[in-house]
């Protein structure tokens, strides 16, 4: 039913739409900036005023994935002609791609990107999994000192984690966990677990316990009831928690910088390390950052239905 609106309400509504549009533009501006820089020719990246219209090119991405050196003298024409299209782009910039025999040497970016994926995915699965079980326990059973325990779990987040970075580093070095995937995964699970427990506790409390009780009298064990009834009902909560845990682990910078340097280094500390000396290559850095944004964007996009859907939808009458 359409409500009758006064002219002031209409004006207010329009103002709200404008405000939302402005806010959206402000939030999207850095994303646009990174994305456009990733496709710009090198010389336009730092032009003042900024160039908005340009011929996009993928050269920054080619540079991102290859090892290159500056050439002392121009490339010989027959070599240039024989080179594939992407290698020509590198020659155009006065550089050449490093090769071992005929194989192109890849830069460290794919490896760092893979490290990020491994650490973020595994730590997210562990944090959300453990958080879900813990939250279920707190939600369904009488636990002595429940409130104190929950507060204790949360209290691990009452200090900026970086405060303990130095002792953590020393401990990690002592037990040989520095510069290892497992080391970072343990750290990120520890950061995310309290958050995951609290968030999942809220979602678990929302799931009526009659569902499990019905399953229990229907002939299932509590474990079966948990997997067949509670988990599907908690899907929304699990998706939301997973998105937040993934983003935290994916974007973590400080510990990754301190705890890793080669083998297990993730993308966040790696990307700025490529600024190097001399004139920074902003387009390559932007290309790396742009690719780095994609997994979170895709992950969130895939789970968007779960994020928006209500926890239960009307099968319990209250």
């Amino acid at each position, binding site marked *: 039913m359409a409500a009758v609106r006064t002219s002031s309400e209409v004006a207010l509504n329009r103002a709200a739409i404008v405000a939302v549009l402005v806010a959206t533009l402000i939030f999207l501006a850095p994303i646009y900036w990174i994305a456009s820089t990733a496709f710009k020719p090198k010389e336009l990246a730092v032009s003042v005023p900024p160039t908005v219209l340009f011929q996009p090119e993928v050269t920054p991405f080619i540079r991102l994935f290859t090892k290159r050196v500056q050439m002392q003298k121009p490339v010989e024409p027959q070599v240039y002609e024989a080179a594939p299209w992407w290698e020509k782009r590198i020659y155009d910039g006065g550089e050449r791609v490093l090769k071992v025999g005929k194989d192109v040497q890849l830069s460290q970016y794919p490896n760092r990107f893979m490290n990020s994926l491994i650490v973020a995915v595994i730590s997210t699965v562990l944090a959300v999994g453990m958080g879900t079980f813990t939250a279920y326990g707190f939600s369904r059973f009488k636990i002595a000192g429940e409130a104190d325990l929950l507060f204790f779990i949360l209290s691990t987040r009452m200090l900026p984690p970086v405060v303990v970075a130095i002792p953590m580093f020393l401990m990690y070095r002592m037990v040989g966990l520095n510069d290892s995937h497992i080391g970072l995964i343990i750290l990120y699970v520890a950061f995310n677990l309290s958050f995951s427990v609290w968030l999942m506790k809220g979602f678990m409390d929302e799931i009526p316990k*009659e569902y499990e009780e019905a399953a229990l009298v229907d002939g299932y064990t509590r474990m*079966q009831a948990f997997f067949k009834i509670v988990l599907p009902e908690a899907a929304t909560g699990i998706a939301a928690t997973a998105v937040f845990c993934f983003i935290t682990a994916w974007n973590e910078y400080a510990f990754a910088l301190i705890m890793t340097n080669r083998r297990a280094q993730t993308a966040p500390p790696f990307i700025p390390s490529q600024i190097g000396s001399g004139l920074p290559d902003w387009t390559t850095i932007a290309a790396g950052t742009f690719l780095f944004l994609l997994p979170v964007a895709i992950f969130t996009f895939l789970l968007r239905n779960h994020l928006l859907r209500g926890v239960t939808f009307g099968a*319990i009458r209250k």
Partner: protein
Amino acid sequence: MTQIELRGIEKFFGAVQVIHNLNLAIADNEFIVLLGQSGCGKTTTLRAIAGLETIDKGDILIDGKAVQHLKAADRDIAMVFQSFSLYPHMNVFENIAFPLRATRMGSGEVDKAVREVARVLRISDLLEKKPSALSGGDMQRVAIGRALVRRPKAMLMDEPIGALDAKLREEMRAEIKRLHVKQGSTTIYVTHDQIEAMSLADRIVIMHEGFIQQVGTPDDVYSRPANLFVAQFVGSPVMNIVEAGVAGEANAARVSIGEAPGGFEFPRELLSKLNGHSSGGLTLGIRPEGVLVRREAAPGYMPVEAQIIEPLGSFDIVDLKVGSKMLRARTKAGYVSGPGEKVHARIDPEQAHFFDTASGKSLGVRL
């Protein structure tokens, strides 16, 4: 063939005892209703039988076998919850099939069993729907279907129609009765609604503060309440309960209420049946239909004044001032024209109940 027996059940929630020494034997195929106000222990008793609640003392026997240490899954009992608890992520078919899937039954048999139950409950056309798309009555049918499908030893129902609106409740009440007659399974049904209890039960168990007050057929608990609690809890409109004094005359007994002069006339045998209780501490219970009202004076009738009239459609409830007390009487609709009208009333001795005021127990006097 399932008999259920509860022996000396006690249950504590922390320091609070919610069930006191509860004993009850339920026969095969019997429809038992646990009736009481919220917090009386009826749902806890039901959940204890289902295995969702532990007990602190006593035995729960199903077909003579103690089951109090068995998990809910191993008791072979089905339960219908007030909230229905249909699994929202499964369609109706899967909801009904869910208990069968726990038994690793073949999918052909599952299909057959589910469709048979759906046919009996008249929900065959809903099998593909999700619970969220169902009406309240259909949700309840599905919940009952899920309970019936594996032919459990017994059915437990926890206020299964309490969440429905009044009209649907009446419909579903009839349907539950029809199903019980047709399927015949030992059923324990919890409700706070005495009309539901009266209309469904073979026997009613009335509970109050964790104690069984009376166990009996609907007629028993209505016509022969064991104590003041049952007398007031069962029956609508509520039974009149008043302190009464009894005096003997040459060929009658007089029961006086609220210092009203004269008193109501009763047969003289009341005195011998009361057996000395006439001296004091006596409470009279009389249902509104046992208070007879007429406009003209007549032998045995006492003049009283009508104070409030509640028209209830097919009849009226009239509050009569008897001395300092009120008696509610049931009359034909419109029989008493308005407040302040002077009418004449009598108590039907056959419908009178007498209780010991201190203990609340019925004195078992029938005239």
